[in-house]
């Protein structure tokens, strides 16, 4: 299946059921941020999301109609013609159009990060690594940015659920595979994985997890309660 992917520079994609869940509007926000960010860079996954949305469209077109109230058409038109501001909310941040250079982060991610890579305030995570929480909530999947120093491993960890890691800058290797910009690594509970950033450049990732990570290092265990990861 995955060999059909058109953009050969991206080798690792999110699973189809995540793309379908995103299109259906059923994914928790953290997963959807990752799917949308990946889709901005991956033509093939964007096409798959479109196809899944077309399924939603066909299902709605085939739904049993439920009668609207009397005067609904007139009411809707009156509502549509009311002047109003576009309610699309965007985080304060640099809109790409105003910049000289192409942003590193695609748009849905800039909304959540409050801007592009160059304006971020990183929080220390220990061992030279940094992070920025983007989406979090009790019991809900969390999304955050991770910055792993060049040539260094992410602190060894296992986790309780699914973890997706998308590379935004630089690259890392894990289990003999290379993950470059746009690639998404899918890791399960079973997988005791150890991503190592490639030498030469810090690796910036978008990491989404179901459940709080269980870092193994003594130091990480000590700080975990305080930094809330």
């Amino acid at each position: 299946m995955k060999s059909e992917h058109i953009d050969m520079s991206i080798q690792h994609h999110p699973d189809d059921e995540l793309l379908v869940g995103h299109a259906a509007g059923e994914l928790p926000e953290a997963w959807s941020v990752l799917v949308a960010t990946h889709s901005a860079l991956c033509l093939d996954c964007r096409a798959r999301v479109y196809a899944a949305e077309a399924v939603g469209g066909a299902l709605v077109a085939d739904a049993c109609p439920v009668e609207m109230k009397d005067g609904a058409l007139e009411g809707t038109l009156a509502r549509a013609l009311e002047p109003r501001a576009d309610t699309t909310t965007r985080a304060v941040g640099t809109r790409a159009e105003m910049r000289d250079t192409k942003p590193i982060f695609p748009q849905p991610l800039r909304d959540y990060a409050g801007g592009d890579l160059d304006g971020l305030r990183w929080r220390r995570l220990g061992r030279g690594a940094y992070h920025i929480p983007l989406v979090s909530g009790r019991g809900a999947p969390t999304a955050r940015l991770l910055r792993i120093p060049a040539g260094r491993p992410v602190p060894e960890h296992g986790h309780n659920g699914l973890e997706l890691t998308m590379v935004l800058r630089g690259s890392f290797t894990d289990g003999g595979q290379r993950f470059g910009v746009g690639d998404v690594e899918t890791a399960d509970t079973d997988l005791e994985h150890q991503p190592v950033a490639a030498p030469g450049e810090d690796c910036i990732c978008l990491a989404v997890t179901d459940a709080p990570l269980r870092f193994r290092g003594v130091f990480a265990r000590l700080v975990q309660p305080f930094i809330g990861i």
Partner: protein
Amino acid sequence: MSAARRGLSWSGPSSQLNRLKLLQHDKPSHQEDASPDWNALLCDVARQDRAAFAALFAHFAPRVKSYMLRLGSDPMQAEELAQEALATVWRKADRYDPARAAASTWIFTVARNLRIDAFRRRNHPEPDPNDPALIPDPPASADMVVSHKQDATRIRKALAELSDDQREVLQLSFFDDQTHTQISQTLGIPLGTVKSRIRLAFGRIRNLLEDEE
């Protein structure tokens, strides 16, 4: 796999077993093969054509209302959301591109985004077509406009060719606000089976869409 992925706990109301009975109404049919050209009508709406809007409204508003009801709205809320969705269709019709999607697809995404906004109080993250960081779609051709006209018909045909099991998981995903975990509980099948059914069903639909392009 199933235990491993169980953590994918998508939020949403608890399973609604009774809704399953409604599914049979949605068995794909071919009744609409002679239906109006919704894509062209939606383009007319972008030019403020009220007659075109009335035609779209008559067809889609009751179906969007049905979608909202199925997803757990009460009747007043469903009416409200359907009206709001169609009002959004009027206001944003100029953003609709018939080379990129069928009208039904675009209207579905408008309704879906409204629902997420209304129930979860957040936006649906999506790539921005004008973002310089986006890898742009290949240029659209006239063929693509023609091709998307057939989307709904082709998908309906593809849905009809799926096994009942496969169709059911898709309908539950899109229509019943059920996470994959909840679907596995509703149907009493392992989560891994839910996921593989979705993947198979979606793969078959994609093949059918591509074959006929």
